[in-house]
């Protein structure tokens, strides 16, 4: 199959340049995908990967450069043009209509039936057939709002396949998946490629990339800086190309655990639909301790952090911080008890996109000294504090008056971390702190977390990345269906034990 690669690529981008104001997001980038090939696109946050793919899929227009599909020059004015040319894109943030069913989402705009009546039976049938044929089983009648993230991703892929796309552009498809789900997805991608589809895969997980990709291209500051064939580069080499320097994986050194900071007892919580999400959870976090909460998404992690941060109301149970009862439902009181929170959804909760970095820095403490005096904001103090903390956390930005939405994901995350650690909290709730970040940023964030641990801060780390949990945690807690099924020191667990516990196979 590989020897028989046709010479004409399915999709080829040549000399693509894209500017946003003064910023050059893509500079003279060329990239092609051949039938049956998986082409990995790697790069730091903000390197221009998504921008390039958006251009290839008709969401944005290049300032310069050419797009060809099977050797035929194309001009994409709208995503519709790219779809017509057989190009399907799956965005990192899904573009699905929550309140429609899976089948409705997939057949949308190409519905079976007549022009005046949708044939729902046919739609559901076609979707079921397609999904089973492709190894991506879904329930056609389920509402998208009710299915898991992994399912939603299948729907996205099926959407493109339903439209007979033979080029798939996947933007960080594995960022939101649990390890087992990642394996499944990569298998499906491989078999799709083997059936002749060309795939561009954007990912920050370099081992995945080296494992599955036929070719790898590295984008740095909008330019292609390296291109490898399968087996020609190790993850470490790729990382170095991406960041332009050497990356060291952060490894936690043991550290003595102090007195108990957080104690959770018999916590019971319902999720937003009223279904029990936590069913009697108890555990403790000590000073200078990182407790990693492992588990597949949807097993109560979000609710656990929500309750501890004051955003979700528990049904019953207790929690204390340094012996004091936690002020449920009062985010501000909880913050005053010394609890900081890096939320999983940074765009929704962590930042105000239209605010300046300085204002975002003041978001939590704006009402009190040193940010405010007698109710009046101290602008100068806020600005200088923000600037100094940004520098120390390595936040790259135009200045303190840049808008938060201008920052890349990694820099946004570092800004949030800087803000949350500003008050020197006793306890940090870190939820998915490195989701969507590049290796360089992950290194920085991990380094920070360990430093804070060493300084005495207790950290509750929620992550779907087993590697992250294993690298940082002092103790590991596994949540399964709202229950603690495992709670052991790091030294007593392995990848295998955790993997088994996460599927509910081991009792605590």
């Amino acid at each position, binding site marked *: 199959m590989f020897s028989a690669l046709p010479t004409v690529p399915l999709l080829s981008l040549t000399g693509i340049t894209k500017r946003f104001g003064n910023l050059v997001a893509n500079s003279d980038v060329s990239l092609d995908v051949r039938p049956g090939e998986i082409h990995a696109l790697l790069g730091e946050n903000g390197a221009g990967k998504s921008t390039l793919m958006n251009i290839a899929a008709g969401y944005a227009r290049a300032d310069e450069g050419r797009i060809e599909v099977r050797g035929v020059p194309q001009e994409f004015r709208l995503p519709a043009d790219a779809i017509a040319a057989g190009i399907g894109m799956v965005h990192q943030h899904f573009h699905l209509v929550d309140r429609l069913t899976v089948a409705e989402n997939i057949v949308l705009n190409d519905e079976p039936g007549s022009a005046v009546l949708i044939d729902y039976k046919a739609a559901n049938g076609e979707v079921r057939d397609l999904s089973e044929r492709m190894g991506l089983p879904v329930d056609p009648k389920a509402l998208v709002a009710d299915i898991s993230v992994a399912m939603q991703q299948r729907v996205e892929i099926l959407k493109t396949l339903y439209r007979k796309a033979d080029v798939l552009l996947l933007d960080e498809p594995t960022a939101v998946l649990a390890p087992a789900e990642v394996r499944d997805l990569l298998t499906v991608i491989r078999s799709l490629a083997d059936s002749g589809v060309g795939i561009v895969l954007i990912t920050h997980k370099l081992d995945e990339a080296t494992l599955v990709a036929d070719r790898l291209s590295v984008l740095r*500051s909008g330019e292609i800086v390296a291109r490898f064939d399968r087996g020609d580069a190790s993850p470490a080499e790729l990382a170095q190309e991406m960041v332009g320097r050497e990356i060291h994986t952060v490894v936690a050194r043991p550290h003595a655990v102090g007195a108990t900071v957080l104690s959770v007892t018999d916590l019971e919580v319902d999720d937003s639909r009223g279904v029990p999400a936590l069913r009697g959870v108890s555990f403790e976090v000590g000073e200078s301790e990182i407790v990693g909460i492992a588990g597949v998404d949807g097993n109560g992690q979000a609710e656990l952090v929500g309750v501890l941060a004051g955003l979700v109301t528990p049904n019953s149970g207790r929690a204390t911080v340094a012996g004091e009862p936690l002020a449920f439902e009062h985010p*501000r009181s909880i913050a005053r008890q010394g609890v900081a929170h890096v939320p999983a959804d940074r765009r929704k909760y962590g930042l105000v996109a239209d605010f*300046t970095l300085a*204002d975002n820095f003041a*978001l939590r403490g704006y009402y009190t000294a040193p*940010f405010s005096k007698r109710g*009046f904001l101290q602008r*100068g103090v*806020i600005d200088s504090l923000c600037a100094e903390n940004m520098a120390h956390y*390595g936040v790259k930005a135009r200045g303190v008056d840049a808008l938060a939405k201008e920052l890349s994901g990694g820099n946004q995350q570092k800004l949030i971390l800087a803000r949350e650690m500003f008050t020197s909290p006793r306890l940090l709730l870190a939820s998915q702190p490195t989701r969507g970040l590049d290796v360089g940023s992950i290194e920085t964030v991990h380094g920070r977390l360990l430093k804070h641990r060493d300084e005495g801060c207790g950290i509750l780390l929620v992550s779907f990345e087993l590697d992250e949990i294993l690298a940082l945690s002092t103790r590991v807690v596994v949540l399964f269906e709202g229950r603690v099924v495992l709670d052991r020191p790091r030294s007593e667990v392995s990848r295998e034990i955790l993997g088994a516990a996460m599927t509910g196979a081991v009792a605590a």
Partner: protein
Amino acid sequence: MRHPSCLLRAGRDTRPIHPRRRAVRGPRRSRPTAVGGVARDPRSGHDRGGGRVNRLQVALRQVALLVVALVVGGLFIVLAGYNPFAVYGELLAGAGFNLVLAIIPGNPAGISTNIAAGNLFATINVWGPLILLGLSAALPFRAGLFNVGSQGQYWFGAILGVQLGITIGSNGGLLAAFLGAIVGGAVCGAIAGALKALRGANEVVTTIMINWLVVYTGHFLYGYAGPFANPVTQQPVSVPFPEGMRLPELLKSGITLHAGILVALVAVAVFGVLMSRTGFGFSVRTLGSNRHAAHYAGMPTKRLTVLVMGIGGAFAGLAGFVEITGTTGQITGSNIVGSSSFAFAGIAVALLGRNSAVGVLLAALLFAALQSGSRFLSGSFPPELASSLSGVLQAVIVFLIGANSLFSYLGGLNGIAARLPIRKTQGAVE
């Protein structure tokens, strides 16, 4: 691409930095312009490229919009068969703006300073309540709330204020009316805020419904033989607000200039300071930009919703106070029914002024000039068309405000402004 001084790598010390003794004054900031509570995202990258919107550019744009509005309004005038230049000229004169000409030595234009001053006073008397109505929409807008209830808040405030004032009488009656109007307006707004906060009720609808309820209540109270109607004259009008208790007169040139404008100026200053300098303003802006983030940050979002609608209502109530104790001196049931344009006026002023203190001040002046000036149109234009014309002009202006990306769409003004030698303000770390 990125400012070099920001390319600092993470250093040795990760401890958070606490304030230095001498806090550095940061670069001036422009507030995010979340008009109507919906984050604006102009389709052009121009605004984003430089990071912040150039003030001169904004000002130029607003002025250009006004010019376009005048041209469109001129078409209306021409279509009705009149001369737009003459009409606009009289409109300006009617607003008293020709007083400027009278100051030219020798007064070559032959302006009657008395009359021009009187007209200007009339304009200023309208300006005050319009500022207050503008604030009543602007503050909620900043919090992402749309207050269409200015009409109800205005009247509920006015009614409570006037009745309190009359009851208390000459000793402190005016102060009582002032406080009563604030309370009345605030209660009326806070109800909508509370329904929003507690029941998730859409404030656009609730404020409209509350408007009607206040209107019919007011109409009943001051209706024929109503409980608050004038018992002596038997007319469906309130007892006149006593002469000695009215808002103080500042100046008089035929037309009286009363102290309402001072009330409005204080209010707009309070609003400005509140929004840009205080923690309260910060939390309001956060609420308006990202509700979830406000909740996450521990801001009392429900209380803020009630408070913001309440304060917005208080501004509207104050407008009622100023108008009744300054200009009309009475409340008429039929006037309460026919006053639906109050809410629109406030919204239009807030939108034109981009919900900022200075903006509201200027926008209110423009609308005051339109309203007051059109009242004094004479000769060149039939009086029965005058008030409709000023309404049409206001509508066109609001349309164009909404379409503030019109020029970037047409590719015009931004290009022009970009070619002007204006230094872009660049912020930098350190």
